[in-house]
């Protein structure tokens, strides 16, 4: 059993143009910003939205086929949602409020014509599997949010779908319930051979549940692959934000440094992208990624550790080129040793500080980059909101890699 979907559809200004293939027993995590088309894609696979062009096939059975030239029959196919055997579970459990937990789970089987007794028997096995046999006779209103979602999972699986689509199934739950439901899903999905797509905002979902990760942006799948690659070496800002990395795109220089389009330079460790086919050459377009905690801020004593190029780009404080950067950059001793630290530092103005898990997040005005410091580090650096400071990056924490090619779409 495998799911194969190629979809093209417009809704107002939005265009969905994406292809995806999910093998039997495989779980694909679909990540992307709001409005990137993740839910639209699931709705089209479930038959709730008709694409203008596209194919949806499950296990060789055609569920949708519209306007695809190379199909033998040439006729459009649009199997009704209830005949697709495509299970859909959203963030809202949507348990039928007038039916007990058990009747909710039994619903799919009864709809397929099973007798009430045998459907109930199967349903109670499923309720047991999600650990809720003791609340079988309760109405949804008497269950907690986490319990409701577990019943909804049992209900979706009990209907014996050929494909499972999960649309942010943990989004409405608190942290504890979310991780319980996530663990349950991992167990249940492991026990089935269903192709599964799970849409999420949460990188944990991708790490725990997914065999592969796809990043969706503006209706297209912009990256797809193993979680370690797609999330470990993010190629767009959304994926980088998701895993909490800063991204800088630039050209690989002869000394192994990366020069961004605005002239900023950064040094790092060149890594393989997992395809094994490449070795990066000077002049290649590359991405440098580093955690916010790798950034160092310097104020005060330093009169300006800025290269000419960066002064042009940021265009703020007068800089005495050639002067060594301050103590923060000096901490980056490995980089400072060979080619002059000042080349790998730049000036930036601190934006509005935000709390972060490990301390304080320091965004810079007009940039996507952000630093993260412990409170003690921030205090001792003397940096404050609105100050223009010298920024450098610990090169030991920077990885440099090649951007991967975009995934296939219908429009070329």
């Amino acid at each position, binding site marked *: 059993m495998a799911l194969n979907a190629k979809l093209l559809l417009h809704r107002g200004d939005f265009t969905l143009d994406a292809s995806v293939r999910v093998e039997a027993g495989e779980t694909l995590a679909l990540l992307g910003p709001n409005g990137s088309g993740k839910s639209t894609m699931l709705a089209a696979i479930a038959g*709730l939205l008709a694409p203008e062009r596209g194919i949806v096939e499950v296990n060789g059975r055609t569920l949708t086929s519209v306007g695809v030239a190379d199909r033998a029959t040439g006729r459009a196919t649009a199997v009704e*949602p209830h005949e697709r055997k495509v299970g859909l579970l959203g963030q809202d459990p949507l348990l039928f409020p007038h039916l007990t937990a058990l009747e909710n789970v039994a*619903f799919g089987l009864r709809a397929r014509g099973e007798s009430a007794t045998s459907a109930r028997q199967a349903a109670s096995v499923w309720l047991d599997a999600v650990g809720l046999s003791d609340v079988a006779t309760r109405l949804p209103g008497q269950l907690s949010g986490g319990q409701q979602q577990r019943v909804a999972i049992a209900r979706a699986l009990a*209907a014996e779908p050929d494909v499972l689509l999960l649309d942010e199934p943990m989004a409405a739950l608190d942290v504890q319930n979310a991780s319980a439901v996530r663990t349950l899903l991992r167990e249940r999905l492991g026990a089935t051979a269903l192709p599964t797509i799970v849409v999420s905002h949460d990188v944990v979902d991708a790490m725990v549940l997914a065999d592969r990760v796809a990043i969706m942006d503006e209706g297209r799948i912009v990256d797809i692959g193993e979680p370690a690659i797609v999330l470990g070496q993010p190629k767009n800002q959304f994926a980088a934000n998701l895993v909490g990395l800063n991204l800088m795109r630039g050209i690989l220089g002869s000394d192994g440094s990366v020069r961004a389009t605005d002239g900023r330079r950064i040094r790092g460790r060149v890594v393989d992208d997992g395809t094994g086919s490449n070795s990066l050459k000077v002049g290649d377009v590359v991405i440098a990624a580093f955690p916010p905690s790798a950034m160092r801020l310097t104020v005060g004593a330093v009169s300006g550790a800025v290269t000419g190029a960066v002064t042009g780009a940021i265009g703020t404080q007068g800089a005495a080129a050639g002067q060594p950067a301050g103590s923060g950059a000096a901490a980056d001793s490995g980089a400072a040793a060979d080619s002059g630290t000042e080349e790998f530092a730049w000036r930036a103005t601190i934006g509005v500080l935000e709390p972060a898990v490990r301390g304080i997040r320091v965004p810079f005005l007009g940039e996507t980059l952000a630093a993260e410091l412990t409170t003690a580090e921030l205090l001792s650096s003397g940096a404050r909101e609105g100050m223009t400071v010298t920024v450098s990056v610990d090169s030991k924490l920077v990885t440099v890699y090649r951007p991967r090619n975009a995934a296939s779409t219908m429009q070329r």
Partner: protein
Amino acid sequence: MSMKNKSVKNKSVKNMTVKRGSVKGVQTRAVSGVPRLLYFPAALGFALLVFPVLGLMLRADWPRVPAAIVSPEATSALLLSLQTSVTATALCVIVGVPLALVIARSGTRLAGLLRALTTLPLVMPPLVGGIALLYLLGRNGLVGGFLDLAFGIRIPFTTAAVVIAQSFVALPFLVISVEGALRTAGTRFETVAATLGAGRWTVFRRITLPLIMPGIISGTVLCFARALGEFGATALFAGNAAGITRTMPLAIYTAFNGAGVTQDSAIALSLLLIVVAIGILLLLRSWRPELER
């Protein structure tokens, strides 16, 4: 453990603040406060609704009320009223629920048009409705002429005409109520049911109908009450033949005008109708808790 203690502590601190009578106490008072000026129109409205009924009860010749109620004229009218109203209500449920479903699931423009046409009898004087029915189903009417010629069926001035007139004026109440319930319920549960493999008929039977049941029940009660009180369209389209088309409202009218029964029995019959109406109201209120669930 320490976390738990902390939260308990916080709670108790909160409670203390409330006891000191700051935020929470003030809020409660503000919410329940009705501007004093508004009590006057409110009392006036209440009086307008209640005083006429009280007047009727004061005017009633109570010792003779039981006799008037059990008189053959009264019992026959009451029985006819109940029979026709129940039949009309059943008819309204059978056609009204599907009609409401079609309206609720139509596109915005079509739904607007259908809703406007459906609610027309609500804004139309019942007398006009009676005339319209007469011109449609009368012997010279569009459909009535055909029925007469082809099958020899004549509808006006029969008990069937009473039922049709009652249905005509009562149906909008049911449709509006049910359509509102359908819109509130939305289509999300139906979509889920479809992804679980339920066809349209199964979804309607097992999901849609149970979800909108409170709306159907309150709509049915309203519909029945309207059918029971129907006068204008019935008078014009069905006439006022004792035992055939003389329902309670027509019997009251007839009695009040002095033909057949006395004005005292008009009052007695009115009181009887009021009792039945109150019974319906109580029924409606007893269904409300069901609606909350």
